[in-house]
Each structure stands twice: as structure tokens, then as C-alpha cells.
């Protein structure tokens, strides 16, 4: 099961965070800092799976942005690795050439097509996956309705 998802930049600033197990607010900052330090200190030729405390971290680097997913021991790490890539592909398709800033810039609620990372809840629906293909989820929205964040969250929901 997925415990949390983080998007962090090279300076260690959290761009996006979503926890699927309740973690106290004051502990979150410490946890994020620790996790990020773990991932940032890895070299290029080291593998993407790190054992951290009692769960595993699967991280992937895209330019200056690190996407880190914390999973329990029973998960298939390669599957989660692919999931992260899937997520980025969704974002890419949705915003055409997504960048790190997009993830937090487009948080305007309301009838506008922009609502990425913020509307994260459905994405990894309680740590479980739903729709496999970004295209499929996006296609849901082609029926003329306004694209809202919940649509993107659908795509991401596939990533559990």
C-alpha cells in the first residue's frame, strides 16, 4: 500500500505532498526532510529503491524534481516505479509540457481546466490504483464538460 507521495525539488522544498496514513502535522516536515535527504544523496548509478525505516522508498528524478513514493514492504517496487512514470505522463498530456512549477501553480479551483497536483485525493485513492491508462481517464472528459481537477485525479487514481 502506498503510504505517501512527495514531489520535492533539488533544494529540498516540497512542491506536493499527500499522505495516505495519518501523520501528525509537526512530524510531516521532519519526515519529508529526512526522506528527501535520503534520495538527494543517492548517486546516478544507484538503484531507485531505498529501504527507509520500516517501508521502502521508490523515487524517480525528472530534471530538478524528485517524485518519491513510500510503500509498504508487500508492494511490487517495479510496478510503483512504472506508476510514477505513468503519473508524469498524465500530467504531461494534460498540460502539454508540464514543469515543476505547474504542479503548484495551477491550483485555481472553480470551472477551469487547471487542477493538477492539488486535487490529488482521488489520484491515489487511499493508496490504491484505478485506471491504467492516462488516455482513458482523459477521454472521460471529452464529453464537452468542463475539465476539472477531479478528472485528472481520475487518471491518477489509476495509480495506486
Amino acid at each position: 500500500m502506498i503510504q505517501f507521495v512527495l514531489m520535492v525539488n533539488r533544494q529540498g522544498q516540497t512542491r506536493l505532498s499527500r499522505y495516505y496514513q495519518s501523520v501528525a502535522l509537526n512530524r510531516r516536515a521532519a519526515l519529508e526532510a529526512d526522506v528527501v535527504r535520503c534520495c538527494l544523496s543517492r548517486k546516478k548509478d544507484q538503484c531507485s529503491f531505498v529501504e527507509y525505516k520500516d517501508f521502502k522508498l521508490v523515487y524517480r528524478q525528472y530534471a530538478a524534481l524528485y517524485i518519491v513514493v513510500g510503500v509498504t514492504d508487500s508492494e511490487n517496487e517495479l510496478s510503483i516505479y512504472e506508476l510514477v512514470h505513468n503519473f508524469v505522463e498524465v500530467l504531461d498530456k494534460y498540460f502539454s509540457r508540464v514543469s515543476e512549477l505547474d504542479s503548484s501553480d495551477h491550483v485555481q479551483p472553480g470551472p477551469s481546466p487547471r487542477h493538477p497536483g492539488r486535487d490529488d485525493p482521488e489520484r491515489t485513492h487511499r493508496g490504491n490504483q484505478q485506471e491504467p491508462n492516462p488516455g482513458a481517464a482523459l477521454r472521460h472528459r471529452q464529453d464537452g464538460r468542463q475539465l476539472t481537477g477531479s478528472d485528472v485525479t481520475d487518471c491518477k487514481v489509476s495509480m495506486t
Partner: protein
Amino acid sequence: MSPSVPLQEMIRAIRSARTQCEERGVIQRECAAIRAQFRQADNGGRSHNLAKLLYVHMLGYPAHFGQMECVRMIASPRYSEKRVGYLGAMMLLDEKQDASLLITNSIKNDLSHSNQYVQSLALCTLACMGSAEMCRDLAPEIDRLLRASNSYIKKKAALCAVHIVRKVHDLGELFAPAARSLLAEKNHGVLHGAVVLITELCERSPETLERFRKTVPDLVQIMKGLVISGYSPEHDVAGISDPFLQVRILRLLRILGRNNEAASDAMNDLLAQVATNTDSTKTVGNAVLYETVLTVLDIKSESGLRVLAVNILGRFLLNNDRNIRYIAMTSLQRIVGTDHNAVQRHRGTIVDCLKDQDASVKRRALELSLALVSATNIRSMMKELLLFLSSCPLELRAQAASGIFNAAERYAPSQRWHIDTILHVLTTAGGDVRDETVPNLIQLITNTSELHCYTVHKLYRALLSDISQQSLVQVACWCIGEYGDLLLRGECQETEPVQVTEDDVLDALETVLQSHMSAPATRGFALTATMKLSTRITDNVDRIRSIVSIYGSCIDVELQQRAVEYNALFKKYDHMRAAVLERMPVIEKNSPGHTNGESTREAVKEVQPAKVKQAETLLPQQPTSQVCDLLDLLGGSEEPLQPNPAVGSTVPVLPISTSSTAGGDLLDLLGGLEPTPLTSAPTVTVYEKGGVTLTLSSEKQSDSGLTVTLTACNSTDSDISSFTLQAAVPKSVQLHMKAPSGDSLPARGAAKVTQMVALSNPNKVNLKMRIRISYTSQGSAFQDTVQVDSFPEH
């Protein structure tokens, strides 16, 4: 009150803050503005404000004052406000907040809303933060939605059901039939949700698991469809059709097939098909293959399939992608216990991975290599492992060193090889070995008397080159002390002869004594060694006397005590000195950490009874060892600091030499330490029938090791022949039966047959043993079984 800024402005302002302080200032201003806005009644920009608050919350600042606003917005009729309200609820509210109860009614209403997106919002929120009461209230609603016609809603409802089942286990029953019917869906999203739900249900309750076993054929069908079907743009990810669903189904099959022959049979074909057909050039394909391998290894699959799985893992090991190498080794680690031979085939690749750059891969490779060491490949493996030890990262050193020691002990082809290996480890990683290595090594050395000369030469040379590795220095000092005369003699068959004078040796020992790198324990070893040399060398006894007397005023109490006593030995008891400092006898191998049953080598384990001068080497704490060293020197203290092993029921006591009678005087001086009497092992009669008596006695060898001696006696008038004993023990206990002394019992108890059994009980389970006795008497065969439930211990 500053005007409220749109969200993007605020984000930009926060981003541009250069210091933490500045950022905090910006955020505090914004929060104040938001709070003021919340207090105002109906406000068009409510959703914007809440969104800003959520962003601030994500950065880690407190945002609890937004909770009531969330509740209000959820109840609003406008979709935009509802959405942000629900988002806020998911992020800010959880079970512990009281406000969460207030939204139960809103969720209930929204679950029956006409707009599917509103329904989905409610479902998501419930799945995210629903408490147990909320789940119980709304479970029937969810069940209804599971049967709805809209697949978008069904998908969400399935995941919501998963959360409910996790929170309230009993409600699992409610969802089981609906879950079953969902398996017939075509929509992959719904299918995925259904599989997750079924997995959750099966993991929670065994009865549900039984029921869902019937769905195995359906699942197999679905998988086949996914694997065989051609390209489908809807579900394609890098050439594989919906790999995430495939992985999920494989996982469910694993749970259903575990420990069940019928289900496993049904899956065999499918698993073979997936394993062979999946394209492994991309990572997605490898992810599916990995899951397949895990499933094959976990269910009761046929051996051909298992071999296929291990071969796939072997292929992974050769892959360029280090992630795949890592998971291959993790999986091999899990099965090396059961499918040892299959894994052996890939030993070469695993050993190569020891040189990999990545630390995680190295660690895994080390664990696997240690697990794969066996009697046949010990020499080559050890070469690789020693090479690894010299270049491995610090955190793995201790593990590597202890692993090497264990392997060397179990499979050493010769004594000399064993000693060489240990010395090599001590020189490269001496600082990271465990404390008990020193006594173990010393005991090993004393056991191999023919190599004393060789050993002491090697150690002397190692001592000259480097005195920083404490374990090595300790062992070297001890050996030089004991076998100094061999060192000085100069000739040695095994190594090149080198002339060592007494001065050189004393210089070396003095360097150790004076070096600031030496630990107090090491100094103790060196001082004792110097003292022992006083009997082994002829010329420089005065030098030794002066060294020893210097330390009579040393700050370290232990050293001072030793030095004072040695001085006394020189002055008043000079006549005893030779006898006191003579060679130590062979030490018994009975320290903790040795499992008696495992050893397969022909090493000389002379079981020396009684006069055990084992105190010095077998104690883990250094101060105690120094004190006992003292007792040791004074000769003949029979105070066993560990339970004495008694061999059989006879305990021969070596005649105590004259030194110890004088030593007895010294003992009195020190306050009358009484030698405690050695207890003999208690015996218990376990079987007595038809004239055959079987008695059992046991001795504890170590924390988890026990040696049991079975003695059989025949009191009938006729001889018994082909007398054999077989024993069985509980699963976690290891058993090793040594050869019996014979297989015939002459009549009327003229002779006995004894057989020793070594048991190792690491899990400390209740020890029971079932013994089967079979013999032939007067032409007819007899067989009987007896169970021993309690072992006599002392």
C-alpha cells in the same frame, strides 16, 4: 484588512520569499486575511480562500481554523464550492477532529445526488477520512452504488468499499457478493477496483478466502485476455496491456493459491504463459514478470514452473538496469533456503554483483553469497569474499566479517586455511569483528598443535607491521607468550625461516604496552605474554623483570594488579614460576555461539575433561578475564565459570601437580577460593522393556545447544544384534546423531552401547524427542518407539 489576493499571486509571493522568516511573514499575513474573510458571511471568493489555506497547509503551517469552513462549503449547492470543501475535508479533517462528524449528513445526501461528479466527490472523501461510525452508517449506500449502472461510480465505490473493510472488518460480509459480480465487468477501472476489494476481503478472513477460491477460473480468464489480446490503445502502457491490473490479479492469485493444491493447479498454465509471453525489454514487462515469479514461488507450483521462475530471476541478474538486479537478488534471498540448488547455478553472477557500485545491491549480494557458501565452493567463494572485505563500505564490514567467520568455521578444508583466513580478516577489518572472535581464534590455535610454529611466525610478522587492530594484537600477544620459544628457534617448515632474537620479541611487546593505540585489555594481554616469556627465554629475564616492575605503579588498576603479582612471582615464588607459566592445555570448545551439531570437519576436538583452564579465553568481559587469568596463573582453580561439560557419566580428574598445592597456599592468601565440585550429569531411564534399558543424559553445551547421550543395556540372557536408534525432534530443532559405539548388546549387561546426539534449539521451543529402537533378538526383529518430553538439565 488587506485585499485578498488570488491564489497564484500568493504562491508567487511565497516562492519569492528568500528566507524562512520572510516566508512565515507572508503566510501569516495571508492567514489573517483568510480568517477575516471566513468570518464574513456569504462571500463569493470563499473557494479561493479555502484553496489558499490548503496550499499553506501543504507547506506545513497550521490550518485548523479552516475546518468549519470546509463543512460549510460541503453543504453549499454550488459545485465549485463543494469540490474545494471536500478537498479541504480530505486534507484537514480526520477521525480525531470533531468536525468530521458534521459532514456525515452531507456525504449521505451527496451520495444520492443526481450529478455523478458530486457522488464521486462524496465517495472519495468517505474513502479518505471516513471514521468507523461513518462507514457503518453509509455502508448500505456504498453497496447500492456498487451495483449501479455507471461504471465511473462503480469504480469509486469499489475503492470506498476497500476503505470501509479496512476500518470495520465485519462489513466485509456485506460487500462480498457485490465484489463477486463486479468481476464480470469489462471496464478495467471497475475490474481493478474489484480485484483490490477481493484481495482485501481475502486477506482479512479465511472463510471469505475459501469462497473466493471459486473465482480462480474467472481471474485466469481475465488474465489470459489481457496477455493474449492485441494492442488496445485504451489500456496500453509501453506495449503491455494494462500491466497494473495484471500485477493486481497476479497478487490475488497468489493469495488464493497459497497452500491450496487445486487452485494452484488451475493457475499453472496461466503462469507459464505469462512468464514466457511477456516482453521483458521494458520495465513494465519486468514488473509483470517479477510479480509472476513471486506468485510461482509462493503457491504450490510444479517443479518445472519453479525452475522457470528461478531462471527468470537469473536473467534479471544479468540485466543492465540496477533496479532489476536489486529486486532479483531480494527475491533470490527469499528462496535460497528452499530452492538452494537452483540458486547455486547463478552463483557466478551474484558474486559479480559484490563489485557493483550501488550499496543496496552490494548488501544483497553479500547476504546471498554467504547463504550460498558450501563445502564444494568454499575456497573460491572465500577468495571473493575476502576481496570484497577489503573494499566494502564500512556499514557492511561487520556483517561481512562475521559471515566469513561462520562460513570458514563450517566448511574449512584445512586447519591452516582456516587460520590463514581468520588472520586475513583480522588484518583487513580487525576493528569491526565481534569480541568473541579473539577467544575463538585462540582456542582454534591451541587445537592445532602442529601449526603452532607457523601461526606464531605469521602473527609476529603481522604484529610488527601494524599494531592498531586490537583483536589481532591480542591474539598475537597471546601466541607469542605461549609459543615464544618456537618463535625464537627460528626454523619452521611452513614459512621461510627468519631469525628473531629475544630482544626483538621483547621490543615488539613493549611497543604494544606503551602504544597509545592499545586498549587496556590489549595491554593486559601484552603484559601477561611478557611474563610468560620469562620462562621461555634465557637471556633477558632481567629486562622482563624491569618491564613488569614498571607497571607496578600503573594507573590502570588491572595492569597494576597484574604487575604487582608478577613481581611477587619473581621475588618470593621464583621456584614456582616455571610451573605456573607452563604451556596451557588444549581448550575445550564449549563457549556460547558454537553449535555442536553443525561442524563437519575432522578437527581435533579433544574433549578434555576437568582441569579446565578455560577461564581466560571463554569470557566475554575483559575485566573478568583478567581476574580469571590471575586465578589461572596461580594454578588449578577449579572454579568453573561456565557449566562444565561432563562427558558421559565419568569425570576423570587430572592429577593436580605440586604447583597447585603451593598454589593452594596462594589461593588461601587471596581468601580461600574453594574449588567447586564437578557435578556429574543426571541420567534418566526413558525406556525399559523386554530386557532392554535405555538411559538418557544431557549436557548443555551452549545457550541453544544440547548434547544427549543415550546408553543402552541388555539384561536378558540372549545377545542382541543390529541394535539401532533413530530419533526425531520438533521442526525448528536441529539434530545430529553421531556414530554409535556399536550395534550389539551382549547378554546380561556385559557391555553397553552409547550414542551421542547433538541438538541445536535456536528458537528455544519445548524440546521433545521421539526415539525408535529396533533390534534383533533370538532371530526375531523388535521395534518400539518412545517419546521423551523432558530432558534432565543441570
